[in-house]
């Protein structure tokens, strides 16, 4: 890994495919290539929409999505602060990728499912997971949907037709395909959208999942958030393909690229992919060109590998101000309304944090539950031993 003192140019020249974002000649596969001719864009710089691909969202839908994007942004910022204060252990956010996540989640029908990786809490909230439950997961307390058994941001929300988050990269991809395939076998109308990053396209699971979905025409929407980085490794080091969407060619799966910071473009391509799946035509791979404005997680300092100056162009493409310009133009949305919205969301968030922080840790014996359907003898013995024995200090028991 390079150091913070290393000039940006040395990192750029080490990349096999060419220069880094922020330079004069971005390579085609890089997310900065959102203006390439094959990339679906709808929201123009002046805040108007390209009628050719306009998904036709109602004004109230756009405002609801804007609100969800701002909420995700505020959550991200607040959770990073909580981690820095030592009040939560970890956060892995989506700052800069809100349009990709919310646009795609919005485009799924009620009977469709979402299989997440770990950066899509906004999709879980969109699917109905209460904010309190999400924040409970961040604290790993007794009300955490996963009972404090996984790191923060590893939640689950089955009643919202939302999967379970795992840390290993790409494992959800084949599972999503199997799930979609099962729906097809049962002749039930459900598609599955599976999220993953550009790094996951290097995993076995991506290739297994694409291959199986292609062969069996499983109604799957592969949603690759090409956010430029897999921890410290840039897109150019992840693949020698020109694009991630073109990887579909090898599997007989159509690929499409869209401007992932353009809410309307994301809705348009995802809706098309779902419609294709619903017609029985099989999977689609979407490459959403977006950018990870922060580090990989709170455990990562991107200054060590990513020149700060290069972020400016991405900050200009930030999906929230872009959508803000649109709603200002179409609804007369004002700065005062923004302030009001932020104050309302901030209050909601603060209240949830206060409740979560005061909620007790999971009960000791819960550690032994859900390993098997019923508690076998060896776990009964080990549970009793733990309950009898000395307690770790400072962990609420």
């Amino acid at each position, binding site marked *: 890994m390079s150091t913070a003192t290393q000039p940006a140019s040395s990192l750029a020249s080490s990349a096999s495919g060419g220069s880094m974002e922020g330079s004069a000649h971005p390579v085609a596969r890089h997310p900065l290539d959102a203006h390439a001719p094959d990339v679906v864009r709808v929201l123009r710089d002046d805040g108007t929409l390209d009628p050719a691909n306009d998904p036709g969202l109602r004004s109230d839908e756009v405002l609801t999505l804007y609100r969800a994007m701002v909420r995700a942004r505020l959550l991200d910022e607040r959770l990073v602060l909580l981690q820095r204060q030592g009040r939560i252990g970890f956060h892995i956010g989506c700052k800069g990728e809100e349009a990709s996540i919310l646009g795609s989640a919005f485009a799924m029908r009620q009977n469709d499912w979402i299989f997440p990786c770990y950066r899509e809490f906004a999709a879980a909230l969109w699917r109905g997971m209460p904010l309190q439950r999400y924040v409970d997961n961040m604290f790993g307390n007794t009300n955490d949907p996963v009972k404090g058994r996984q790191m923060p941001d590893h939640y689950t929300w089955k009643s919202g037709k939302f999967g*379970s988050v795992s840390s290993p990269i790409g494992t959800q991809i084949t599972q999503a395909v199997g799930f979609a395939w099962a729906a097809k076998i049962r002749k039930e109308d459900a598609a599955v959208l599976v999220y993953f990053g550009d790094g996951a396209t290097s995993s076995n699971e991506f290739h297994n999942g694409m291959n199986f979905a292609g062969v069996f025409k499983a109604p799957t929407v592969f949603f690759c958030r090409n956010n430029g980085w897999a921890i410290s490794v840039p897109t150019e080091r992840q693949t020698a393909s020109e694009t991630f969407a073109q990887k579909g060619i090898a599997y007989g799966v159509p690929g499409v690229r869209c401007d992932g910071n353009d809410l309307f473009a994301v809705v348009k391509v995802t809706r098309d992919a779902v419609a294709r799946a619903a017609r029985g035509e099989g999977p689609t791979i979407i490459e959403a060109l977006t950018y990870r404005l922060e580090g990989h997680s709170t455990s990562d300092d991107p200054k060590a590998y990513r020149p700060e100056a290069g972020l400016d162009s991405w900050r200009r493409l930030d999906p929230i101000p872009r959508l803000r310009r649109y709603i200002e133009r179409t609804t007369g949305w004002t700065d005062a309304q923004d302030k009001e919205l932020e104050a309302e969301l901030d209050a909601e968030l603060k209240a949830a944090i206060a409740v979560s922080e005061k909620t007790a840790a999971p009960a000791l014996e819960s550690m032994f539950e859900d390993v098997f359907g019923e508690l076998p003898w060896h776990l009964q013995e080990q549970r009793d031993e733990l309950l009898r024995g000395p307690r770790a200090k400072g962990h609420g028991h």
Partner: protein
Amino acid sequence: MPQMNMVQAINDALRHEMRRDNRVVVLGEDVGKVGGVFRVTQGLFDEFGDERVIDTPLSEGGIIGTAIGMALYGLVPVPEIQFSDFIFPAYDQIVSELAKYRYRSGGEYPAKLVIRTPTGGGIRGGHYHSQSPEAQFIHVAGLKVVCPSNPADAKGLLLASIRDPDPVLFFEPKRIYRAAKGEVPEGDHTVPLGKASVVRKGQHVTIVVWGAMLYEALDAANQAAAQGIDCEVIDLRTLWPLDIETIITSVKKTGRVVVVHEAPKSCGLGGEIVALINEKAFLHLEAPPKRVTGFDTPFPYTLEMEYLPLSHRILPAIIETARY
């Protein structure tokens, strides 16, 4: 009751359950038209069609990953891994995902499926067609591991595994696929998971064994009997969770134990069984527990009969333990 071999009994169990429950699907490499490389799924494709007996692309990770997704949807997949040696490309899906789904989702997503796979040596298969990797799965929280030794148990344990709420690895000892024959109950016949079988009653030495090595242990026990040593032979049937009660009851009676398994010796299930006996019945022991196992080498081709813990190696261990 009809006479069957192991292959026929497993086939009978699959057919029975697929008729009873239309959520059950079989998937894997060559399981369809050809009926599996050992013919275990023969005829199922013709009866149930290609949406329930599915020939997949050649990818163990893909088979198990998609089977997990099917299970999450509500199907009951019974994927086949052609040889247990080839299970490792799917290891991450089994260990990181399948085993932990119920736990990691706070009980929201119990993922249950039965992975069937031929296992063990003695068929001149070299080390990519002969290994016994059961201990590597027993060490993972959340998995159940089964290994039948006869046709009736194979049917009964497989039906119980398919109906069990937890993910099960079902290891089929291929050396006895056709060699082990016996009466198999018709129709619905289950053998409960977690219950061992006392195959031979005896007073002097307990032998704990499973799978194909059961017959070697019985052979050794018969030879020992000629020397006045009366062995009790326990077939584990379910390797995890273990039927510790049956083992401890027997050891308390005999005071002596020999554990036999094909898998390598170090960190194998035999070591765990000995540790449990030490924890629970130490003061009843009259001799140090012994293990007769495969060696800590890759499984060999030409010398496989020297590698396997056959009766010629089990008998001296029984005698040594009995005379300690």
